[in-house]
């Protein structure tokens, strides 16, 4: 029996095929999937903020793009993933409300996506696919067996990247 492992907001988890991993209702947060296609091991982190160094209260590592990815890699290696094999897929980073252009909160989704890409680049992890931005929420499911990321949104066709 395969199982669907859930990841909450500011949370992370790992999974091995045939299990799958999901996070529900991504808004401005970014869902980052890392996986080792050879060993069929995946991990997902649901990050809320771009940069842990800008925040005083940064104990929850899964909350930030930078520390979240580091912690996820550590946990994946612990269950047998190979560092050099890791690739990434990301989704989320929407702008849920149409704030004015001078509003600091407006670009949080974009900044989360930018910070995620920067971190992946620094680590030399290749970004295989993304579905980011726009103004709607996303539920994502990742299947390490196939390496496919399923994206569901309200009033839209399901898509796979």
């Amino acid at each position, binding site marked *: 029996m395969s199982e669907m492992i859930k990841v909450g*907001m500011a949370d992370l988890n790992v999974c091995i095929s045939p299990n799958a991993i999901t996070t529900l209702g991504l*808004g401005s947060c970014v869902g980052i999937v890392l996986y080792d296609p050879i060993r069929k091991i995946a991990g997902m982190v649901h990050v809320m903020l771009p940069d842990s160094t800008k925040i005083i*209260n940064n104990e929850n590592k899964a909350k930030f793009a930078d520390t979240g990815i580091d912690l996820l890699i550590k946990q994946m290696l612990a269950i047998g993933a190979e560092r050099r094999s890791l690739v990434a897929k990301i989704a989320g980073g929407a702008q849920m409300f149409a704030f004015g252009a001078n509003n600091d909160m407006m670009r949080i989704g974009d900044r989360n996506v930018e910070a995620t890409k920067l971190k992946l680049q620094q680590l030399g992890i290749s970004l295989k696919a993304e579905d980011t931005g726009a*103004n709607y929420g996303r539920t994502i499911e990742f299947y390490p067996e196939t390496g496919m990321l399923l994206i569901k949104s309200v009033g839209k066709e399901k898509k796979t990247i």
Partner: protein
Amino acid sequence: MVSQINLNQIDNMQYDVLKEIGNIGAGNATTALSQMINSKIDMKVPKVDLLEFKELSDIVGGAENIVVGILFTLEGQIDGMMMFMMDMGAARHLVNLLLGGAYGSETGKFSEMERSALNEIGNIIAGAYLSSLSSLTNLLITSSIPYMAIDMSGAILSVPAIEFGKIGDKALLIETEFGDTDNAVNGYFILIPTIDSYRAILSSLGL
């Protein structure tokens, strides 16, 4: 003395004060709503919950439940955000009460007119909430225009959650359920002051 506040360790006194703010704010908001739709609206005792982000989206029936969220940004001596959130059934019910069901369909998507009515409901509710908060604390608060989104509750809640995320690992939620006698509608008021504004609120009340 300026109060120190750490959202992970709110003391009982601070908790009671925040609950009372929710009570007065939501009480006024409910009265305003009741006058607007010309129908009796009851309000339950507000709950103040300090939730982990993981648990946050469960309050409105799960992260994938479709809800209407109306958000305001706050400026002045208290800044931050305020959000009014309700499920689709509640939103539909309120719109029908307000417009007499004359615009748009009974189910499905909201028409332009209905969206505008929802924004106005949000405006009046937030205005009543904030003016009571303002007179209670003697602090000036100005609110933005309403920003509305209809989407999965997890996605909508991510916006206030991110603001909370900047100051802690939990979200403080002041939740109030209201409804008319036969058709319960759930609404949630969420007030999200910045950390400095928490201090301002508490010290204005002598804490």
